[in-house]
């Protein structure tokens, strides 16, 4: 009897041990939030959209591609000892070029993050969140996605449009979409953003003026697409409408000091309509590493860990400044002997020992009073769209298809940009004066290549003429005299052709998706 009791006990025990709880197989992560448990409040939405302004998803494009493409391809700058960079400079770009690959991957990383955020909000946003907050979050996301596609369209032309990355699981191999459809996708996103973003938000976040300024720029670009000699007036009018609205009605004005715009303590002044936001103390692959790569000296970078690929301005860029244009020149590039009191401030400031980059170089952790700042985490929030850019877009859109203009509005905004820089106002505008102004005002902000591509859409001969008549040599500078090298910088530079305006699709993607080699198809 006793034995049977024991047996019964053991059997019971066995079953007690065996029964698993109902939730035994449900094991959410303890270190990460699942999207189906997120997006429950407005503050959740704000945390989700905050990640779109910088950090890892922007990193590849920002670190490696945006200045090399924007400023080296266009003849503003050169860096030695870096083959892939040389390929951009000498126009011998292969499809294996890593800068091209970083730029492509980086922009699509941003797009993937945006698309997942849109999915997350659409699928999981709680009913209790006000519709305006949901729409504003979607608008922020679509603004950033629109910007990323705008860069892709400008730099590569026809590219695949991905609006929902989860669909790639079923359909991974895409065709390229025709470039006008990529622009249409951009304007659709930006229009939604312009309509749904607030008039103002906390510093650093985009608002409706950011979207409208961007729309103005995109329409100005689009106005020339596929045109011959002249631009499409209706699209120019759209550019005038949006850019003009920002110029006239936003209540935002230029920040008085051009020089201070590029110092970290003036991050996110109202002039910065859209700037990437970078945190101090983050690890490799998450921060602003521009000065680590491109500063003229490692001493200017926290812990001396930087200045790996020091950028040198070309003679062509140097020449485009007038003698009076010192504020912008000094804020953009260093010439031998230039003194920067705020850099290496503890040891009495920095005196440039040669020519080099200044913009984005903000100095060490001590210079910025930011103990957490490291070489790979500069705290500079660099602007992707500034009000002065929109002013110049507005002026160019008013110039439109005229050879010259003395339109008072155009001159007014154009000259506000010049005035701030301490140079004389212009009496009359042409496409050349505007392009030159943009080049100087926005040098090392990755813009000049975009300007040339914009021009190439409707006047390729002129764009080619500009590219093929540059003096791309780097120079030495002493006592006010720039001396050219004896042999041409970068060796033989291949003359630009009509094919030079689109970057190659990275070889890795051509290999993994042979459809990319097919002619582009319509998206809409």
């Amino acid at each position: 009897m006793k034995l049977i009791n024991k047996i019964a006990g053991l059997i019971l025990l066995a079953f007690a041990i065996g029964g698993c709880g109902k939730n035994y197989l449900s094991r959410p992560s303890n270190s990460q939030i699942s999207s189906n448990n997120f997006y429950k409040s407005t503050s959740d939405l704000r945390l989700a959209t905050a990640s779109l302004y910088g950090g890892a998803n922007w990193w590849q494009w920002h670190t490696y591609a945006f200045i090399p493409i924007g400023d080296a391809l266009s003849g503003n700058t050169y860096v030695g000892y870096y083959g892939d960079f040389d390929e951009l400079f000498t126009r011998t770009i292969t499809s294996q070029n890593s800068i091209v690959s970083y730029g492509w991957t980086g922009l699509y990383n941003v797009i993937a993050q945006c698309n997942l955020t849109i999915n997350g909000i659409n699928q999981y946003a709680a009913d209790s969140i006000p519709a305006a907050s949901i729409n504003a979050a979607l608008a922020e996301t679509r603004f950033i996605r629109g910007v990323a596609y705008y860069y892709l369209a400008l730099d590569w032309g026809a590219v695949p449009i991905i609006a929902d990355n989860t669909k790639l699981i079923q359909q991974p191999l895409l065709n390229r979409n025709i470039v006008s459809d990529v622009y249409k996708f951009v304007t659709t996103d930006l229009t939604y953003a312009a309509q749904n973003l607030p008039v103002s938000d906390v510093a650093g976040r985009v608002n409706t003026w950011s979207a409208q300024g961007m729309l103005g720029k995109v329409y100005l670009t689009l106005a020339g697409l596929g045109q011959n000699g002249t631009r499409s007036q209706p699209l120019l009018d759209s550019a005038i409408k949006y850019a003009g609205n920002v110029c006239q009605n936003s209540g935002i004005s230029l920040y008085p000091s051009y020089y201070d715009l590029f110092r970290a303590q003036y991050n996110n002044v109202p002039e910065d309509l859209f700037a990437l936001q970078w945190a101090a103390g983050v690890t490799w692959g998450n921060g602003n590493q521009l000065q680590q790569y491109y500063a003229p000296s490692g001493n200017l970078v926290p812990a001396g860990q930087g200045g790996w690929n020091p950028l040198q301005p070309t003679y062509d860029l140097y020449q485009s400044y007038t003698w009076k244009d010192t504020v912008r020149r000094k804020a953009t590039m260093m010439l031998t002997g230039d003194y920067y009191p705020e850099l290496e401030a503890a040891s009495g400031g920095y005196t440039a020992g040669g020519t080099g980059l200044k913009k984005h170089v903000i100095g060490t952790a001590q210079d910025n009073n930011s103990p957490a700042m490291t070489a790979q985490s500069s705290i500079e929030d660099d602007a992707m769209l500034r009000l002065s850019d929109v002013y110049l877009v507005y002026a160019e859109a008013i110039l439109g298809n005229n050879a010259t203009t003395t339109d008072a509005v155009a001159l007014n905004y154009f000259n506000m940009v010049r005035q701030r820089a301490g140079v004389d106002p212009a009496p009359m505008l042409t496409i050349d004066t505007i392009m030159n102004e943009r080049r100087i005002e926005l040098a090392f902000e990755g813009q000049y290549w975009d300007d040339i591509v914009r021009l190439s859409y409707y006047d390729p001969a002129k764009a080619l003429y500009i590219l093929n008549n540059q003096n791309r040599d780097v120079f030495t500078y002493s006592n006010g005299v720039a001396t050219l090298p004896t042999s041409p910088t970068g060796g033989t530079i291949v003359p630009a052709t009509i094919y030079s305006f689109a970057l190659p699709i990275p070889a890795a993607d051509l290999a993994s998706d042979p459809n990319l080699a097919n002619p582009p198809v319509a998206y809409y």
Partner: protein
Amino acid sequence: MKKKKRINVASRLLPVLFVFLLLSLQIFAQSDARKITGRITDTKTGLAIPGATITVKGHNAITDSAGKFTIMAQTGETLVITHVGYNTSDIKVGNGNTLNIELDIRSGTLDDIVVIGYGKVKRKDLTGDISSISGNELLKTQPTTFEQGLQGKVAGVIVQQISGQPGGAVSIQIHGISSITGSNSPLYVIDGVIIPPPSDPGDGSGSNPLNSINPSEIETIDILKDASATAIYGSQATNGVVVITTRRGSISAPQISYDGYLANQQLAKKLPTVNLQQFATVLNARGAVWGFDIRPQFANPQYLGTGTDWQKALFRNAPTENNTVAVSGGDARTQYMFSTTYFDQEGIALGSDFKRYSVRLNLDNKTTNWLKIGTSLQLVHIDESVNATASNVIQTALSMTPDISVKNPDGSYGGVTNTAGWVNAIANPVGLTAINTDEKHRNQVFGNVYAEVQFTKDLSLRNELSGNFDFNTNNTFTPAYAFGKDVNSISTASYSYGQNFYTVVRNYLTYNHHFTNYTLNALLGQEAQLSTFQNVAAGRSNFPSNDVQSISSGDATTATNSGTFGTGTAIESYFARINFTWNDKYLLTGNIRRDGSSVFPANNRWATDYSGAFSWRLSDEEFLKSVKEINELKLRVSYGLTNNQNIPGNTYTAQLTTAANGLSGNAQYQTNLPNPNVTWEQTNTGNVGLDGTFFNWKLNFSFNLYNRLTNGLLLQLPLPLYSGTTTGYSPGALNAPYVNIGSMSNKGFDLHIGITGFSNKTFIWKTDFTISHNANKVLSLGSGGNNANLSETSGISGQTDVWEKTVVGQPIGEFYGYIYDGIFAKASDFRTHALSANSAGIPYPVQQSGGIWYGDRKYKDINGDGIIDSRDETFLGSPIPKVQLGFGNSITFKGLDFYIFFSSNIGNKILNTLSVTQNNPQNNTNYFTSVLNYANVAEINPENGNASDVNNYYVTNPKTDIVGLRNDNTNYNTRPSNLYIENGTYLKCKNITLGYTFPEDVMKKAHLHTLRVYMSVVNAFTITKYTGMDPEIGSWNPLQAGWDYGYYPQPRMMTAGLNLKLSK
């Protein structure tokens, strides 16, 4: 929920406490037993058998040297006589008091016990495809970890070492690759404890969880290969199961043994790097062409010495020692095995070593006549230095040029001092190993406790609780240093602590009944598995001195920390099995198992595995019984379906991670592209086998033919870059989704033959031969269709290239690239041979700068369009061996024993990445001597010819495949090509051992039982055409199999050791 869990744990511990209480009860049943004496002899020789065990209910005895024994027993009881190497004999006690018993030498392996998962059977009753290897066989190669010892020993199992780092892991594939999720590792079960298979350590520095198992404690390893054998283990067993049974005590007097060896390891093969004179010669010639990077100190190479041999500087002769003391024994009620081991292996590369301290206790207790309890318990402590691998010193040493000294005259470490030209400052690898710290320490407890209840003669219940608890730390310190121009100005340190807990509760009922003509064996059970982990890590930089390395001494403002409470996978399972044997001739097995896994979304959480097998003992049929050459012949047929769930948890939903953000302090960003439809990967396996023993047990073989078809292949899908996802390193990209993408087949056969060539009392010769062949083929890649290719890229050539593709119709992970077609050696080559072209399809010009020139490489124009571009790439061979062979011979002559073992891979390719860089004269690190044969471009008419005339040049050594000296790579000479994809076929003499066992009478005088001394050489020699260090390149990732990045080579090891038994 939390509370409930705790109660569960408590209730699970109860039976354990209960059984330990019972342990203290010792029942000595006494009755009218009388003294029985007897003698045990060998049937054939008639000689006495000492050391045999005689058991009868409650008593046991052991025969003395004359084979005599005395035991208490009563009439009608059964004496069970056991001795190693003899068939067990049951003798009923009659009326007499004296018994003379003869034992038969056990022939063949038919009565060997084979573990089949939740049970055991005799080999003759086996229906599935299971190979077994004994602990003694395993130890013959002195493996550091047990998996190393399996190489070439088991047919159908491909074993390849991944790293020669002490304690490093090997990859094991059973019957091919059925999964592309990375791991094709089998399930490892040691005494019922599941050990997680080693996972891809990424940089190769990860610890191998299997290295905590001490090979000398292993009794047998059973390798379950076909579905009928593995299905009972369910969803983790798709890639086979390796069941390890450790030694347990037997009924005998205490047996004390000591096993130990000392070994010396050395680098088996040095790569042919240039010496200083050769280096200077190349650089001088190159400088003359380049017009810069001319080094005045190299002006007269003949006066230079040989310079630094960095391989000599980095590699050393390294000692290894192993000491194991074991005590085992027991009586009829309790058996024990206690073993303790110290193992210490220094790596042949500086900065690597491995130490293992382990204690094992195995206990079995027959508590009452209906209850048996026991435990297997191992405590391990491991110290590892993985600095060599983590700091990548082997690759670095091969990159260091001979002009750099290891140490400067002032005692500091040397380094690159002149970075003119394009020279990189590389860290001094010897310096790195000396000053960097990267140590891993691990304490591990694993084991089980069980209680077995015998309800009736036929029905029993087993409750088992097993666990694997692993506590590990990793500390690193990188001091501030300056090796010439390679300067690290900031010291950094990190420390991490992690613990991994893995627990299993299982309960199963077994019913076993012998009817007149048939036997029925049934199993019904349930199992729950849970793994969890916790870790914290901290780091600081800026230490005031390199001598204080604790985290707290660093700069507090640089402190970083992180930590996770991980919820690993949970699996809940129910299973059943029926074995049915009719007349000992026809055997049937059926398995079914239902698994629920937490890694899948709720709607896909459960899957069913099943299998069936039939086997037929032909030799028991009347028509074969008369054929006396055939001792045994058995045909096996099996089929089954298993499900695989080898992916991380929570991939079916997007996960958000906290990141520092310049905008709001914090932000949440998504880390993965979710696949809400991810589900189980299914493998169908069919197997036909034939086992036979012939010619008076002298020849035995086992042959298997299999076909495995995997559907719904789980893969972290490599998508194009535009997907914004990655499977590797790509900052800011989302983790690629896990997707069921297609199907793949593995077809193959394996054969094991064992021959006793000759045997008499003094001389025995045995041969073992295994051959395994597997053909892998991808049948479908789902929605990607024929264009999908799962390509893998690498930047080894300086640009990102695809080196591997997996496409429908080809085996997984084939190499891909161009076919090398000689060099441009004469002017007509430029006209007759296709030139490489830019992305617009326009061939590059023939010119010295910015074009194609003499000494550039020609590639085959495969599509015949007159230019060389990506359309001329093709498949260059598979990294999977077509055949793997093992061949062993053992000879015993009186006390002497000799063993020699070979293993071989045939028909695989290896990507030798070192030859990409080190055979390229444009490279600025070190070279192999083959670079001296660079294409030498000369003018046809140096006096009067036009230097700018393309036709005025030729290459003086047109047969070379080394490119010419030029500061231009427009032709992209280092592009993926068959020049770098080498033949990986090899024959390795894995082991040669010579041993001597001292005669019994000598031992008696010394009061010892047995003593054997031996010497052996492991990895004695390798015959191969492969030019890298070691053609054995194991891999975790089947998409990157056979990529040799300069792995840690396997050392040659010379060993002297002894096996000593103090008492019987």
